[in-house]
C-alpha cells in the first residue's frame, strides 16, 4: 500500500466501480419499502418471498436451468470430440474447422440470434425451447473448444502413445489417459458455459416466445414496468449462486487453472 499509492488507489477505485452497484443492490433487496430507494427505510425479506412466489420467475428459472444445462452438455458433446480431432490430427482444412468453431465469438450475438430466429423459429417452426437450446449450444461451442483445447494443447501428445505402447487399446488409452488429462479443462469449460448461458440476454431475447422465457429476459421485462425491489432480490439470489459455483470450482480445479486457460 505504502509503496505505490497511485496504483493501489486506482485499483481500489476500479473495484469500487465494479462492485459498488452490486453492493448497493444487496441492501435494496432487503428493503421493507415499496420502491427501489437507498438507503432502504427498513429491513425485511418480503421481496424475496414475493420473488419466490412470482410464477413467471419460477418458470423462467426452470427454462434457464434447462437451457444452460442442456446447451452445456450439447456443447461439450460436440466440442470435446472436435477439440480432440483439431488438436491431435493434421488434415487439410483443419484451420478452417477450428475457425468455424470459434466464429460465434466474433459474430455479434444479436445478429446470430436474429439469424437463428429466422431459420429455426420462422422457417423450420422449431419451438422456443428447442431454438433456445440450439442457439445457446452454438453460443457455447467456442468456450468448449477453446478451454478444453487449451488443456489438451498443454499436455504431451506422447502420453497416448505411451499408453498404447504399454498395452492399452485406443479406447482404453482414451478413457484412462486422455480423458483424465482433459478433465480440469472440461470442468472449467462446463462452469464457464453454464454461467455464460445462464446470464445471456441478447440471444435469448430473440429466441424466447410467448410463455417461454429465460430468467434474465423475464427480469428485464419485469423492470420495464415495475420499480419494486423484487428484481434486486432475484439478483441477490443469483449473486449468491454465482459465488457458490465459483467457490466449488475453486475447490475442484483451482481458479488459476480455470482462468489461465
Amino acid at each position, binding site marked *: 500500500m505504502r509503496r505505490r499509492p497511485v496504483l493501489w488507489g486506482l485499483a481500489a477505485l476500479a473495484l469500487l466501480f465494479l462492485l459498488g452497484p452490486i453492493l448497493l443492490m444487496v441492501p435494496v433487496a432487503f428493503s421493507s419499502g415499496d420502491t427501489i430507494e437507498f438507503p432502504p427505510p427498513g429491513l425485511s425479506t418480503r421481496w424475496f418471498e414475493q420473488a419466490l412466489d412470482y410464477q413467471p420467475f419460477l418458470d423462467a428459472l426452470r427454462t434457464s436451468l434447462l437451457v444452460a444445462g442442456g446447451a452445456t452438455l450439447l456443447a461439450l458433446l460436440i466440442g470435446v470430440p472436435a477439440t480432440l480431432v483439431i488438436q491431435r490430427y493434421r488434415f487439410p482444412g483443419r484451420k478452417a474447422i477450428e475457425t468455424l468453431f470459434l466464429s460465434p465469438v466474433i459474430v455479434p450475438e444479436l445478429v446470430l440470434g436474429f439469424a437463428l430466429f429466422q431459420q429455426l423459429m420462422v422457417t423450420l417452426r422449431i419451438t422456443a425451447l428447442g431454438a433456445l437450446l440450439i442457439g445457446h449450444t452454438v453460443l457455447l461451442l467456442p468456450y468448449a473448444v477453446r478451454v478444453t483445447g487449451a488443456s489438451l494443447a498443454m*499436455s*504431451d501428445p*506422447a*502420453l497416448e*502413445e*505411451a*499408453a*498404447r*505402447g*504399454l*498395452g*492399452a*487399446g*485406443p479406447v*482404453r*488409452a482414451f478413457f*484412462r*489417459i486422455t480423458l*483424465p*488429462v482433459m*478433465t480440469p479443462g472440461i470442468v472449467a469449460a462446463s462452469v464457464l458455459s453454464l454461467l455464460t448461458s445462464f446470464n445471456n440476454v441478447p440471444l435469448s431475447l430473440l429466441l424466447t416466445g410467448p410463455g417461454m422465457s429465460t430468467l434474465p429476459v423475464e427480469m428485464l421485462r419485469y423492470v420495464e414496468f415495475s420499480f419494486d425491489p423484487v428484481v434486486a432480490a432475484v439478483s441477490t439470489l443469483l449473486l449468491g449462486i454465482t459465488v457458490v459455483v465459483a467457490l466449488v470450482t475453486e475447490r475442484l480445479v483451482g481458479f488459476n487453472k480455470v482462468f489461465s486457460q
Partner: protein
Amino acid sequence: MTPVVQLKAVTREFAGTAAVREVDLTVTRGQFVALLGPSGCGKTTTLRMIAGYLQPTSGTILLEGRDATRLPPERRNIGMVFQSYALFPHMTVAKNVAFGLQMRKVPAAQIRTRVHEALDLVGLAHLADRRPQQLSGGQQQRVALARAIAARPAVLLLDEPLSNLDARLRVQMRQELLRIQRETGITAILVTHDQEEALELADSMVILDRGRVVQQGHPREVFRAPRTRFVAEFLGYENFLDLPGRGRITIRPEHVDVVEHDAAPPAGGESVTGTVAAVRFRGTDCVVTVDVGGQNVLATTTNDSLRAGSPVRLFLPLDRAISLTGTDSVPGDGGQGTPSLQHQQESPA
C-alpha cells in the same frame, strides 16, 4: 535363435520423400543396439516403426519371428522411453509403473511386487507415491525407464532418452542405463546422435545417413575402421587425404608426424609436403593446420618453433592410416576430396 527384432528392406516415405530407405536390421536377444546419425537421418522414424506408431511404406518388420508390420503398438510387447518421458501426470509414480502390468492383466498382488522391483532397479522405491511433476528430470527419466521395463517387454526402445538431462547427469545415467540393461538382460535399441553415448553403451552400432544404413558393427570395430568419409567424420575424424596409389585415407592428428621439410621420406609410410597455415598452442603441444596442395591436414606436434608459412613435411605412418573404401551412397555429399576442416577444431574423441 530367432532375432527379437528384424527389419527387412523397410522404407518410409513422407509426402513422397523417403525418410527411411531399404533399412535392414537384425537385433538378437540381449543385444544393445545404438541407432546413430545426424539430425533428420531417420532414427526416430525407424524406432517409431518398430514400436508401431508409424507404418512402413514398404518392407517387413518381424518381432520375435512374427510378422508385426501391421500390428498396433498395444500388441507388440515393446517398452518405449520417450524423449519427453510422457509420464501420466494424473497418476502416482507407482501407478505409472503399474499401468503396463494392468493392461497385460497381471494379477494385482503380483503387480505390487513387480512395481516395487522395477522402482528398486532404478533406485526410486522411496518415491512411489509422488506425482511425476514432483520429480526432478533425472528421476522422471528413471520412472519412465521403470515403466517401460516393468512388464518385461521383448525389446526396450529408447529415443534420445538422455538428451533432456544436463551434461553431468547424462554421463551418470549412461552408466545406470548400462547397469540396468546388464542386470535385466533386456534387448534394447537406443536412438542417439551422440557418438560417445553409442560407443559407451552399445554392443552394436548402426549408422544412418539420409535414411540409409551406411555401416554397422561393434562400436570398436566401426570406430577403428570407418568405411566412408561420412562415418569417419561423424565419429570425429578430421583429416581426409587422397593419396596417389592408396586412395582416400583418414588419420588422427596425433598420429601425423611433423618433420623437417627437407628430411628424407622415412620408410613404412607416406609423406607429403605443405605449408603451415595456422598454429594453435595447447600447452603441452600444438595443433598445426598444414596446407597440403589445397587440402588442410591437422597434426599435433611438440615442436613449438613452427609459424604460419613454415614449410613442413608430414609423415603418415601406414599402420595408422585408415583407408576409406566405401563411397557415400547418395550423390551430392559434402565436397569429394576437399576436406572441410576449418570448422572442426576440437580434437577427436
